[in-house]
């Protein structure tokens, strides 16, 4: 195929335009001749043959280019996004997606918070190995088809979904058997295009890539609104934990940047923390996994907690005394959070705040620590961090949130749903239920489906 014959990939643009390289390497890239990148050309070929439809990123999505580890230009759509949520995130760390929605509202971006989506099922796959490539591909393509139908571009919240989708796409492009196996399933589900093609997105995009691409706008917001509230993160010591499934799974397809360790380590999260002016501290086990381990968190937690405590929390405490560990995935965040307490019983207590990049950024930009970032769900000590960030009035803010919850539950108990809806209109809460693909506005927050039901 075309790529293999190229003298140099720099400055190259594929015939269909979805594979692009800058004129010069942006940093010393790992591969001169990236075998993974080649799948973009293969996608173009499959599209020309009528097998697939590439769901393209257009002007409407206001894309921002970033570099991957191979030096490829990856377009990150920033507008008109279809939020593909994470199972563990919404339940365990609701402030995580909420912070992301908050930013999108702040920036006036259009998005769809879609209930018609399924889990990626990759947790099952990694946890027990009982799934298989065909099933994973079917689930993924079903979700992508749904996004495509709505015209909103998929933004994937979960690191594992993101990694799994990247891997599934590669397998699908490389293996005709797989495409042939998955097509009849999609047909039955009504998830092919009218002319019988599979819908495959041009780029698979993780929310942390969105945060990365938007880091300068986030910084602007911080300067304008966060600092006005007396927030200052310049003294905050931040240890970064990069999630395995974002950057080690299909390692060629994740952002790298000359400003982040000379392009030698994944850029997302680190770059936004740096843009905000906080201190990124390096520690010796930065590359280690958190211990979550899918199966392990369910059935072999002694591994999870031992790994989290000894390979991460202890090292971070002893080597760099970070104020916060910043993550960009669901599993790592919960693992670091919830396992601190077990260490206490073993004389291995290394307290540190834990949250995702977008939560930290939202706090820095002045988001409400409880209403939006929902830190009350955290069990690690986040209070010293808030103090250090200059959010010294957190006690009042907490009280305000508690009063609000009380008020809402009173209204709910009394069955005053109309009043409740009026209240939500005024209440400065993020607005995740803005629209669904059925076109009905706020389908979820109605009297038959109250938002807070105990």
């Amino acid at each position, binding site marked *: 195929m075309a790529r293999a014959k190229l003298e140099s990939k720099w400055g190259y643009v594929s015939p269909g335009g979805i594979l692009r390289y800058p004129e010069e390497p942006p940093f010393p890239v790992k591969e001169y001749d990236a075998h993974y990148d080649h799948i973009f050309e293969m996608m173009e070929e499959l599209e020309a043959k009528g097998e697939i439809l590439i769901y393209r990123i257009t002007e409407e999505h206001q894309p921002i280019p970033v570099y991957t580890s191979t030096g490829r230009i990856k377009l990150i759509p920033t507008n008109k996004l279809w939020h593909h949520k994470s199972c563990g995130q919404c339940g365990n760390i609701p402030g995580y997606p909420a912070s992301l929605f908050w930013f999108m509202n702040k920036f006036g971006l259009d998005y769809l918070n879609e209930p018609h989506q399924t889990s990626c099922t990759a947790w099952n796959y990694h946890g027990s190995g009982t799934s298989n490539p065909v099933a994973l591909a079917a689930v993924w393509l079903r979700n992508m088809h749904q996004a495509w139908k709505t015209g909103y571009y998929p933004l994937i919240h979960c690191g594992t979904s993101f990694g799994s989708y990247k891997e599934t796409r590669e397998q699908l492009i490389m293996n005709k058997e797989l495409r042939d196996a998955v097509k009849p399933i999609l047909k039955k589900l009504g998830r092919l295009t009218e002319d019988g093609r599979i819908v495959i997105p041009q780029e698979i995009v993780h929310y942390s890539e969105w945060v990365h691409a938007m880091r300068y706008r986030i910084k602007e917001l911080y300067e304008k609104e966060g600092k006005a509230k007396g927030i200052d993160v310049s003294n905050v010591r931040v240890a970064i934990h990069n999630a395995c499934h974002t950057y080690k799974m299909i390692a060629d397809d994740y952002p790298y940047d000359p400003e982040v360790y000379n392009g030698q380590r994944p850029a997302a999260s680190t770059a936004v923390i740096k843009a905000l002016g906080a201190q990124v501290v390096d520690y010796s086990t930065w590359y280690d996994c958190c211990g979550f381990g899918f199966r392990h968190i369910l*059935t*072999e*937690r*002694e*591994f999870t*907690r*031992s*790994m989290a*405590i*000894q*390979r991460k929390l202890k090292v971070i405490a002893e080597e760099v005394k970070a104020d916060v560990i910043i993550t960009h995935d669901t599993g790592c965040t919960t693992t670091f959070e919830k396992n601190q307490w077990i*260490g206490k*019983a*073993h004389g*291995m207590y290394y307290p540190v705040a834990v949250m995702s990049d977008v939560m930290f950024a939202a706090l820095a930009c002045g988001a409400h620590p409880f209403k939006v970032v929902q830190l009350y769900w955290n069990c690690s000590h986040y209070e010293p961090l808030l103090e250090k960030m200059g959010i010294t009035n957190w006690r009042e803010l907490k009280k305000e949130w508690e009063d609000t919850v009380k008020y809402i539950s009173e209204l709910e108990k009394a069955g005053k749903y109309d009043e409740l809806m009026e209240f939500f209109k005024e209440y400065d809460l993020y607005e995740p239920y803005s629209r669904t693909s059925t076109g009905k506005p706020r389908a979820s927050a109605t009297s038959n489906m109250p938002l807070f039901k105990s």
Partner: protein
Amino acid sequence: MDVSGDWNLIILPRVINDYDLDFAKEVMSLPEGKTMIQCYQCSYCTASCPVHNYWDERYNSRHFIHLARLGLIDELQKRADVMWRCVSCHKCTHRCPKGVLVEEVLKAILKTMAKKGLIDEYPSKKFDKFFTESVLEYGRIEDGELLFGWIEKQGYNVVKDPILKKPIPFLGETPEWLKQLVMKPIKSMNISFLVLNAKHMLFHPRTKNWNKFKQVLRKVVQEEGGLT
């Protein structure tokens, strides 16, 4: 549900965090340990070694050398139960393509470990001591006493003669294997030989003038470090 069964477990990392390089220095400061430095881990020695081949694959001369050179003490200790098993056949030394005096080096490693209290004294050394004591006592090897004295040390209830307080063969508890071992040849043995042996067992003959000589010898052996 916790399938693993232990909610309260913490697993400690099995990462090697450092080397103890002084250990190797000590081994190589011994004359018999010097050639350890030459080993390039080809495993010619281990492949040849009868103990590795027929006893326990954890007995591995090449591996011991690697562990000793980096000073991975905990790994050496994991093998402490087999490390004494060398039969001193010297096949290893005979074969080594790098001229390592393997058998000697292994002894140097053991000696260093013992000196540092990293390994229990090896069982055969206990017998050696007992053996030496017997020789020092009588100026000769007293078979019966050696055998039954050793059996007593192994925890058997032997019967002792009231005067000399030495075990009387076969009167007390005797291990089954020993009975069988002895019964077979006894049937075909010359009666006068048996009588002689029985006499020796009871009367413990000594080398002439042994008492004087014994003191000198004990002193010399002690100075040579032979009694420790």
